[in-house]
């Protein structure tokens, strides 16, 4: 089955990001396809490489990057939500005159159309959040 995943909450504050990660991992292990993981609302905070959790805790952001690297998963951060919350890649920095970037490896910033496309193209849209 082909899945698109929507993550609506930030890391550590909320279990949604952990549950989404575990779901994606389990789905891949069962041979399913992940068309895309779309990060929306505070979920965009899953994609900042500046995250530094204590060493005895899981690293939510690195975990996503690793998953993307190993399985070629498309991790997409909503541009409008990212702009509000300060998630920046090189293109966004240039467009909006910012002096830094913070996007983590394996993530890209794009529009809400990517969410709709994922929902239409996949067999299931699975949403993680409240």
């Amino acid at each position: 089955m082909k899945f698109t995943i929507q993550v609506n909450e930030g890391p550590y504050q909320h279990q949604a990001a952990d549950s989404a990660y575990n779901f994606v991992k389990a789905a891949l292990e069962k041979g399913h396809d992940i068309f895309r993981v779309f990060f929306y609302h505070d979920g965009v905070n899953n994609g900042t490489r500046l995250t530094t959790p204590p060493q005895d805790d899981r690293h939510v952001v690195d975990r996503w990057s690793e998953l993307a690297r190993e399985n070629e998963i498309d991790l997409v951060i909503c541009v409008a939500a990212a702009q509000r919350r300060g998630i920046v890649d090189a293109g966004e920095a240039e467009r909006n005159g910012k002096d830094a970037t913070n996007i983590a490896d394996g993530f890209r910033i794009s529009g809400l159309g990517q969410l709709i496309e994922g929902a239409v193209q996949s067999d299931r849209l699975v949403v993680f959040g409240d």
Partner: protein
Amino acid sequence: MPDVKKLMYVNRRAPYGTIYAWESLEVVLVGAAFDQDVSLAFLDDGVYQLTRGQSTEGIGMKNFSAIYSALGDYEVTRIYVEKESLEERGLTLDDLQHLTWEDEDEDWAEKESIRLVDRAELADVMSNQDVMFNF
């Protein structure tokens, strides 16, 4: 792209306490370009999103309530409001904005967008959807 899918946006939160309502509306507006079969549902505190006479002056936030009345122009013609959610909050349809759309097939006749449904009816409508967006 596969055939047209039935997309429902489910709105369950009050408009300004969190950003979910506003960012949900942004998805609806962008999603309109995909020519899918779209409907919206408002239940729980989500019914407050449609109330008339909203003012955000005191909280310094953008008042986006006027956008609901433009949804007809985005071909959003079915807006389900859950009857029990209104009643539990002491609201009636008169407390909500009057939302309409123009039917191209009937010489642009103005039609009601809001459909008042009870919990069981809304469950039926939901079970017929292909995709549910929850906000």
